[in-house]
């Protein structure tokens, strides 16, 4: 029983990282209908920013997190401006291919700048576990879950209550009508990329602390799983991304613990396939009528 609870908490922790990364995926998809395949690489860059600020500059954890998220936001803005904005009216497949290109570019950039050998991420969150009864919970796990939940609440309130947040919702529903309301659509899309990228970096920072390693291809698997999470929950829907993230994290952890660690990824992707066959729009997705 204790072991099972332990696994649940681990699943919650991994899941919360996937959930935050998935939020970035789904926000960008929601606003320009682009599967931003470079999102996993933004996460990886975020991890390197964390490594540099922690090791080279010696910043404490909260500064590492803030600075990494800020730099990633700027990186996301630049990518949007250079690579995606010129393709705003191009066929969707062009932007998708560009996203794959950006993803490879960032991997190779990391390879050149930081070399292929994994860097060891220092323990900037103290390692000693907290004991609750027989349960041993790592501080990293607790910090990850807490911060993820805080960021999800912040994002939710931002989208619902603030003007830029409402503009983001409006643009994702109807660009032309948004223009008529006086919304600067380009600026709103840029803001979405900035926030999405910062969330990706958040995932990267906590992932690298949890797994203590930073390397150029580290964004591929978590990026893919966050994508799966976003699709599983219903792409374009923020609650869907959160739910999907937690579900994927749980399934992965439980199947690693009780079935087989080799098979856990296959199980995760298998479940995606099953859900998509049963409900193509994802768990929370509604089968919307096509607009005429």
């Amino acid at each position, binding site marked *: 029983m204790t072991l099972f609870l332990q696994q649940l908490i681990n699943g919650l922790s991994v899941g919360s990282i996937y959930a935050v990364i998935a939020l970035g995926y789904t926000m960008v998809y929601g606003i320009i209908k682009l599967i931003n395949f470079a999102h996993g690489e933004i996460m990886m860059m975020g991890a390197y920013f964390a490594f540099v600020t922690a090791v080279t500059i010696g910043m404490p954890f909260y500064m590492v997190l803030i600075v990494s998220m800020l730099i990633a936001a700027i990186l996301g803005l630049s990518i949007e401006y250079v690579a995606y904005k010129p393709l705003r009216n191009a066929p969707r497949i062009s932007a998708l291919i560009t996203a794959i290109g950006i993803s490879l570019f960032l991997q190779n950039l990391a390879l050149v700048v930081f070399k292929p050998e994994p860097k060891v991420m220092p323990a900037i969150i103290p390692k000693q576990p907290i004991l609750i009864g027989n349960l041993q919970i790592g501080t990293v796990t607790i910090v990850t879950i807490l911060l993820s939940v805080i960021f999800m609440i912040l994002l939710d309130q931002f989208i619902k209550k603030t*003007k830029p947040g*409402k*503009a983001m*919702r*409006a643009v994702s*529903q*109807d660009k*032309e*009508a*948004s*223009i*008529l*309301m*006086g*919304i*600067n*659509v380009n600026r709103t899309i840029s803001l979405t990329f900035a926030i999405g990228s910062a969330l990706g970096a958040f995932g990267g920072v906590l992932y690298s602390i949890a797994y203590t390693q930073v390397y150029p291809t580290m964004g591929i698997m978590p990026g893919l799983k966050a994508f799966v999470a976003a699709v599983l929950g219903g792409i374009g829907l923020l609650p869907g991304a959160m739910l999907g993230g937690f579900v994927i994290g749980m399934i992965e952890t439980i199947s690693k613990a009780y079935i087989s660690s080799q098979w856990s990824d296959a199980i995760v992707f298998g479940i995606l396939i099953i859900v998509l066959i049963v409900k193509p729009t994802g768990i929370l997705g509604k089968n919307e009528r096509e607009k005429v």
Partner: protein
Amino acid sequence: MLRVEDINVFYGKIHAIKDLSFDVKQGEIVTLIGANGAGKTTILKTISKILTPVSGLVKFNNENISKIPAHQIIDMGMAHVPEGRRVFSKMTVLENLQMGAYIRKDEREIREDLEMVFTRFPRLKERSKQVSGTLSGGEQQMLAIGRAIMSRPKLILMDEPSMGLAPILVDEIFDIITSINKAGTTILLVEQNANRALQIAHRGYVLETGKIIMQGTTKELLNDEKVKKAYLGG
């Protein structure tokens, strides 16, 4: 108040609007009538800068608006009720109305205007928490008009507000347009329903394949044999 001068608009190679000019004076309801594909929507989209004309210009309050970005047009006092309503379907009625006041910062007056819209459209008040995508067509049209009013415009462009509505609702919508106009807002009304549009407008233009083929006061147009034949069903 609004002057359109010799505009030419293309969709790729399709020449949708040809050397077209007309004007709207303060306080008027002016209607543009024309059949499907005549170019009515294209003209309104050109005025609100969603489309860019290849040549010609649009002046609003004597100012050439060709350099002004589309999202700043509403700041100048022009609102657009687009074809097909285009309400934000996943937002509530209240949120949609608030989007109409997106550019405004005078919170207290926004609340007053919200009350004013709710008094004008009691049905929207009853449904203020309802998601707009689930409203009926007539309610969505009311919402689209209410949303436009929320920016306190001097001029409203309306694209076929009667489209797809039952006759009784058409009456209601046209009454509302008249009362908005009486309250001091100038209106450019685009309609296929020529009969009804000419009943409430002061002046009208008849549009055929991107060109104005006739213009005059509504009385003149209502009595014109050609207009009667082609647009008034008799």
